[in-house]
């Protein structure tokens, strides 16, 4: 009786200590989790999530400060992937942050640009080219369509237009689930 209690206590303590040690030793690497979250984010750097870029948002999600549904450019797909990575339930996109749009690109109306460089300073990915009192232009391939340059422009000469995407084969109509539906559809 006594020996049984002792054995079990020893076992419990032993396994407990082992788990404690393993838990410390094999703690998930905080840095790599941030990187993995950042890898899912679309890197638009639009700050619609309330953080000044994708990486800060990734850090906040990893720290448990921010929710997983704050990234409009990532859309529902992005939320789903984050939920899968973090092992939580997916939730609908937080619409108050903005809506999910097709890929956009900023275009400067070069006739109206006065060369103030404000948009250049606002661009998070250095995709605008220009200098003081010289015309500015957007490098289309590098623009993420984050809209951050629109607000600072004093002459309102920047527009956001849909990115020129190649034609893609549309999704065919779904196949009816039941023969009866097919016959009547």
């Amino acid at each position, binding site marked *: 009786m006594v020996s049984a209690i002792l054995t079990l206590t020893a076992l419990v303590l032993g396994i407990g200590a082992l788990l404690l040690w393993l838990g410390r030793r094999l703690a998930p690497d905080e840095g790599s989790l941030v990187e993995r979250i950042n890898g899912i984010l679309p890197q638009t750097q639009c700050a619609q999530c309330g953080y000044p*870029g994708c*990486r800060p948002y990734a850090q906040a999600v990893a720290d448990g400060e921010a929710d997983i549904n704050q990234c409009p450019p990532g859309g529902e797909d992005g939320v789903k992937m984050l939920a899968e990575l973090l092992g939580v339930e997916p939730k609908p996109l937080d619409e108050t942050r903005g809506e999910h749009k097709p890929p956009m690109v900023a275009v400067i109306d070069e006739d109206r640009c006065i060369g103030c460089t404000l948009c250049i300073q606002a661009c998070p*990915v250095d995709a605008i080219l220009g200098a003081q009192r010289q015309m500015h232009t957007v490098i289309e391939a590098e623009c993420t369509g984050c809209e951050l340059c629109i607000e600072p422009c004093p002459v309102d000469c920047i527009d956001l237009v849909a990115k020129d995407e190649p034609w893609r*084969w549309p999704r065919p109509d779904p196949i009816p689930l039941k023969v009866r539906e097919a016959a009547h*559809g």
Partner: protein
Amino acid sequence: MDDALPGDRIHGFHGGLKLQHHKQTACQHPVERPPLPERLFIAMRQHQGETGRTLVETGEHVLKGQALTEAGDDFIVPEHAPTSGTIEGVIDYPAAMPPGSMRRTIVLVPDGEDRPAPRQPLEDWQERRADEIVDHLHRSGLAGLGGAMFPTAAKLRGGWSGLHTLILNGAECEPWIACDEMLMRERARDVVEGGLILAHAAGARQVVIAIEDRMGLVEEKLREARSALGAERRVRIRKVFTIYPEGGERQIIQALTGREVPHDGLPQDLGVVVHNVGTAAAARDAVVEGRPLVERIVTVTGPGIADPRNLLALVGTPFAHLVEAAGGYREGVTRLVLGGPMSGTALPSDEIPVTKGSNCVLALTREETAPTQPTLPCINCGECVRVCPARLLPQTLFKLVEAENYDDAADYDLADCIECGCCAAVCPSHIPLVDFYKHGKDELTRRRLDRRRAALAKRRYEAREERLERERQARRAKRQEREEKLKRSETDAKSEIQAAIERAKRKKEGGND
């Protein structure tokens, strides 16, 4: 030789279909040249790759064979004037692919004289380096005539070690299409000679010309041509079984070597490279005669064509002009298809022009295109699995794509689908399976592009953050330096005053002495 060479034995491949080939319909007449159309519409980009810079201006008079767009790297293939005439302009004009799209197109009004620009053949090609031939073919505007229009130079370049065999694909497996068969019948010698040129350019020791076992006449002609060129030892002619889609690149390789091209690999990994027989003839024209690629044989056929035949069409000829040259439409035509009935594309209009890859125009009537039965749910019969030449699981892929589960579809190797249409042809539920695969592949492409864009944006964002940090530090360092200097100058001033006072004191003391 440790291995048996390709063509030693004819193998099979998985699946495929025996189809009614309808080839003889268009082979009753020799290949003819239709009259010159009023206007030629030359798409500035016909191949897989980028568009070259325009070399001509509106109103300019050009000669036959003159370059209209500039050659760039191997993926910027130039276009040439198919005949002499005046450039009317550069416009957006409908193209066959993608459906309903427009493409930058040069409009040429022929002057009817067909005056050629000075020809630049590549003399003594046997003595030339492979690179010289590849460059010459590239300047001559060669892109795969089999249909995919892959730049020929890009396929030949690279000096693949261990490449031993050039396969010339003459197995035109899709029903109705007969342009390659007619080409080999009429220009067998040019095909064989072109094969030797391409083999030399690719560094291959032997040429295997693959034809279908029903092409008896072609085999005879090719054999004669081979003897005439004295190339019996280097050129083999092999007949493969007529099973659709044995003319597919990976299928013809499997039929000739018994080996499968790895799904993430290239034919070159097996020591072979495949070119279409039409590309070989075009290579011969470019090297021996100095003629750039400006024309090709197009099969104009189908139940909706009055007098089906093969026509030697200039690039840029509207299909309507070819149909007219083939006797016009019959009554009840409901659909015009570019390519064959299995993998072709429906054309929205017959004003679309011929490109280097247009092998066939097929006019179908009400009888063939009338809706059959409604689409029904998948019953898991497995017929599609049985016929898939890529050995995929079509029904699984269909269900995954339908559920928008693209990542899993990619894991089931959706990308390896060759879109041959065998699965859809045997599907008892009439599901348009290939439409789903095309959509799924495009969706995967889009995701890949998104990931690439994200990676670029991430790099630029990080670079900017780093730069801003550097600038902040530089500013801080500067400020510190200024402060220190100020402090230093203060102490310097104090000590100077102190020194002056002391000097004055000493003077005073000295004066008193």
